[in-house]
């Protein structure tokens, strides 16, 4: 059933796949980020309660969703690496990690910036903010573990274990923090309910979500491409690649 995937275990094929996919991801990312952001920040109506400050939602929500999505993607890549012993899967994992960490950071930063006008403080121990902060630590742990090894194949395997252990823990951490939060200070913070959002506000959000997803994908693909070339530097196919691109540069 998964046989069609197997050729991509070869770094060369994975590189070609990155090469083919990257323009698509990049185009979708640029187009939808421009449309979604301009629509959201300029044309969407202001919120009747929060005024214009709600507009940060167009950055905050997509980055928060992608921070978790990227973590799951990273863990899936790690699991694929463990099950089928693919080097490219570990490379994919570590290509995604910093992108996901940056998404987490953006979500935290925009969350704090949103919190200031809404709650009157830069940081409150809101359940979602707290679990997002812990998610950032989990990302940093995976990246630090990967960086600590000299042998990058071993590094990938080790970091992969942490990624998988982390993904098992994320829901536990999330619910425990939520529970802790309601125990300690549920009354002091008026949590956002899920207000039904007006369609003219929702559309730019969805478009931006798509844009962020494509953006994460595009950056990860670029990082994966770099990772593959760096790791395979001594292989003939990389030498051919360099020779080809040099020849093309000379012609121009």
């Amino acid at each position, binding site marked *: 059933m998964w046989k069609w995937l197997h050729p991509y275990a070869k770094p060369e094929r994975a590189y070609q796949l990155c090469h083919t996919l990257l323009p698509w991801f990049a185009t979708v990312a640029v187009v939808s980020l421009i449309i979604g952001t301009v629509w959201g920040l300029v044309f969407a109506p202001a919120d009747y309660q929060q005024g214009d400050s709600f507009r940060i939602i167009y950055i905050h929500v997509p980055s928060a969703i992608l921070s978790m999505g990227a973590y799951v993607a990273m863990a899936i890549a790690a699991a694929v690496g463990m099950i089928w*012993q693919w080097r490219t899967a570990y490379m994919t994992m570590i290509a995604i990690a910093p992108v996901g960490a940056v998404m987490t950071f953006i979500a935290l930063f925009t969350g704090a910036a949103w919190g200031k006008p809404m709650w009157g403080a830069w940081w409150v121990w809101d359940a979602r903010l707290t679990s997002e902060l812990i998610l950032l630590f989990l990302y940093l742990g995976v990246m630090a573990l990967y960086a600590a090894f*000299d*042998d*990058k*194949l071993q590094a990938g395997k080790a970091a992969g274990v942490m990624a998988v252990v982390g993904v098992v823990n994320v829901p536990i951490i999330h619910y425990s923090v939520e529970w802790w939060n309601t125990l300690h200070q549920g009354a002091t913070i008026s949590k956002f309910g899920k207000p039904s959002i007006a369609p003219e506000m929702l559309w730019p959000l969805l478009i931006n979500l798509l844009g962020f997803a494509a953006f994460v994908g595009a950056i990860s693909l670029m990082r994966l491409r770099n990772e593959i070339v760096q*790791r*395979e*530097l*001594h292989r003939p196919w990389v030498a051919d690649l360099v020779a080809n691109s040099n020849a093309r540069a000379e012609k121009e």
Partner: protein
Amino acid sequence: MSQLQAIDLTCIRRDRALFSGVSFDLEPSELVLLSGLNGAGKTSLLRILTGFIRPDEGRVMWQGESITNDITRRAFAQQLVYIGHKSAVNPLASALENCVYWCEQQQLTTPPSVIFDVLTTLGLVGLEDVPCGQLSAGQNRRVALARLWFKQSATVWILDEPFTALDVAGIALIEQHITAFCAGGGSVIMTSHQPLVSITQWRDITLEYRI
């Protein structure tokens, strides 16, 4: 039929292919000497044979079964003595205790008198009860090598640089023991930087250093 077979082994470390397509059979009564420059992958090959490293391609077979199978791995472990770079001698325990721990771990019922005899053979008289942390590197090595005497059921020895830190007399003793083991039908695969002195019969497998 030989018991231990390496089939088409490839090892990639640090994104560099150390060796590929290495195949050989380890025959009874045979001594195989792995040679090659530093970094050619001798230790990696020995560690693949023990099953610590999974080869990137190829298989290691014990009596016709792959050692990745846990049952085969355990059957193989019963007949194997491995002595690696790390001697597995705990500096807090004495020479005697280190031997006892190893024998118990290997489910060998070795009476203390036998252990004393072996330690005497190895020139550790009077040092049996001293914590190994206080012994010299060569003496620690001798404690590790004592294992070659305890496991009578062993048919394969995998030795990574067994002569490191040993003096001339120590090397002669170990070479003599290896010869006797091979004469009794055992097979040995080992690496050594020093040329062998008293052993005259061996098979060379050379790993070439590749970039």
